[in-house]
């Protein structure tokens, strides 16, 4: 039995290896029988942990209203953000918690199939899931059927519509959805897509109720969340924290630099937060007025020895390459932004013009893609220009900071294999 105000919840794992089904049932005994799950879900105020933060109960209600014999629940464990490894950690610790949550959701909406989707580049996690699904099949209850899918890892492959399109048509391409809310479909079957961590939270609420759930966290943002801390930290780590914990406390618990220059918060599609604001509670209600978001629970720590503009350039360059290249403003605009950032970093006469172009292009690119990928990058760039405004001024003047010339980088950005991968004019 897990005490309501005890941490960890999601990552509660006494053994250090993924919990087997038997161990899982010991660690998370279901104490509430006959609970009205949907009402508990609504009362808990659970929001999605994939980054968008949409209220889970509302999504479930929307799917319940769909009339179809063949509905799907998709567990999204793709984790497209390179700086995030919370879903992998969760699946390596408590895969059955995630699968339980998916089962609850399937029961709620009347789905007979659950498609668990995890990126194929991490075979350890894939194996853990295979094993867990196999255990359940051996147990042989008459619940919904589990399927494991392993799309290739790309940033946009974790986007809802891209994942569903992969399951439908074998291509991780985000779809154009002008009128929200749109129901995603695999063929004709309506689909409920939820992040793996969200599913795990659903499982906890299904076992212990919303009151238990709300014991931790704030009134507006209840519960706990997993945070991936990387950057200036001894080793990248995943922590489970109650929402509302000050960010600096999280950094201290992670063993990271508690007085950094700035942090990336939310993900590479979110933005930077300056070091002076790190006593802000880690919750959307506190971060929204500052223009930041909890996002996918990512914190990348940039110490004083780093250059925010260099990190931003590296991130934007990679994100530009991760564009699905379906829409012109994204396919051409994002590499142009990366190019401008490169010009801004070099001491040259073009730096001022590059800064101006950067600002203009951000305004032009925003909102003109089918998905929110270009919007995320624009947001990231704008927050960098704001948080590192003094650095920008120095670089433009032709006096780049010392860290910008060092080869030591802090943001986790995968290597671009070939230079030609980026589309340039």
């Amino acid at each position, binding site marked *: 039995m897990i005490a309501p105000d005890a941490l960890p919840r999601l990552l509660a794992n006494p053994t250090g290896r993924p919990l087997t089904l038997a161990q899982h049932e010991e660690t998370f005994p279901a104490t509430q029988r006959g609970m009205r799950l949907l009402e508990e879900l609504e009362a808990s105020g659970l929001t999605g942990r994939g980054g968008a933060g949409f209220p889970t109960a509302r999504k479930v209600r929307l799917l319940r209203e769909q009339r179809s014999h063949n509905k799907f629940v998709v567990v999204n464990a793709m984790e497209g953000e*390179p700086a995030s*490894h919370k879903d992998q*950690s969760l699946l390596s610790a408590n895969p059955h918690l995630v699968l339980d949550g998916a089962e609850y959701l399937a029961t709620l909406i009347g789905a007979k199939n659950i498609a668990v989707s995890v990126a194929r580049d*991490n075979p350890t996690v894939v194996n853990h899931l295979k094993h867990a699904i196999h255990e359940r099949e051996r147990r042989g209850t008459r619940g919904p059927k589990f399927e494991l899918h392993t799309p290739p890892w790309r940033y946009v492959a974790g986007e809802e519509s891209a994942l569903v399109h992969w399951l439908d048509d074998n291509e991780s391409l985000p779809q154009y959805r002008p009128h929200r809310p749109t129901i995603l479909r695999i063929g004709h079957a309506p689909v409920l897509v939820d992040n793996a961590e969200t599913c795990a939270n659903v499982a906890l609420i299904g076992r212990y109720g919303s009151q238990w759930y709300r014991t931790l966290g704030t009134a507006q943002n209840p519960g706990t969340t997993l945070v991936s801390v990387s950057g200036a930290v001894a080793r990248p*780590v995943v922590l489970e924290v109650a929402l*509302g*914990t000050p960010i600096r406390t999280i950094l201290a618990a992670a063993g990271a630099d508690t007085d950094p220059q700035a942090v990336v918060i939310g993900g590479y599609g979110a933005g930077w937060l300056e070091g002076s604001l790190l006593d802000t509670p880690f919750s959307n209600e506190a971060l929204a007025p500052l223009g930041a978001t909890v996002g996918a629970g990512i914190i990348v720590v940039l110490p004083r020895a780093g250059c925010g503009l260099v990190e931003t350039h590296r991130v934007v360059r990679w994100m530009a390459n991760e564009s699905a290249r379906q829409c012109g403003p994204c396919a051409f605009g994002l590499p142009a932004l990366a190019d401008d950032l490169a010009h801004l970093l070099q001491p040259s006469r073009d730096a001022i013009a590059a800064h101006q172009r950067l600002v203009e292009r951000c305004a032009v690119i925003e909102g003109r893609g089918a998905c929110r990928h270009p919007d995320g990058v624009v947001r990231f760039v704008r927050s960098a220009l704001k948080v590192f405004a003094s650095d920008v001024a120095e670089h433009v003047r032709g006096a780049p900071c010392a860290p910008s010339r060092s080869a030591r980088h802090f943001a*986790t950005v995968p290597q671009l*294999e070939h230079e030609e991968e980026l589309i340039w004019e």
Partner: protein
Amino acid sequence: MLALTSPYFWYTTRATGLVAMVLFTAVVTLGSLVANRVGGTSIGRFELNELHRSVSMVAVVFLVLHILTTVMDSFVSTGIVSAFIPMTSSYKRLPVALGAVAFDLILAVWISSLLKARIANQTWRFIHWFSWLGFATSIVHALLTGTDSRSGVGLLLVLACSLTALAAGLWRVLGRPARAAGRTALSPLAAAPASTRPAPRGRPFDQGSGRAPSAERGRALPQPPTRTSRSSERPTPPATERPNQPPGAFPRVPQSDARRRGRR
């Protein structure tokens, strides 16, 4: 069927055939101009598009006249069926068959374009690429049928049209402005663009990862270290192993409503 033996049907069929060939040459040239985004300064791009559409209508009219006069001319016995189905004519079986093939293709392109607003854009584009094949078949039909194309003006005309269309086709594919390299890969002629990512289905946007191919087999990457799948290093130990989360260490935001009554 009117059994007319006037030679004027024969002359008309030859003339309308040549005119149709010239017009279709203009059509494919205009189509290539549109596809390569020509225009915008002295002539509007939409104007070229409208020209392409209008000229194709006129060309189809001449083509229909060419076919009708051939069919109605009883001197050479080709029924209406052989205008659609190849190898059913008793006169000059192969050339007329090629004409039928060309006509079928052009008909498919034409009808799909008339219904453009009602069919999926992908379908329309796929069919539209066959206009090149239709044109090429019609040139071979012209050369093989041979009445005018063996010598003189007729031959010159056929050669000029084929060269123009060939140049237009090559330019269409090779001279594409860089920005237009979007999804023309939907064409049945296009190969998947070169990419280092593994492309299991050869579709334009392949589904590879942004990582080195070795990563697809699960080996470690230079960075980031946390995504490694080496068995010696666990991705991230679960929180219970690390002494960084003792219960109560996290200052909890005080709750105004008393909800701390847990079930113990």
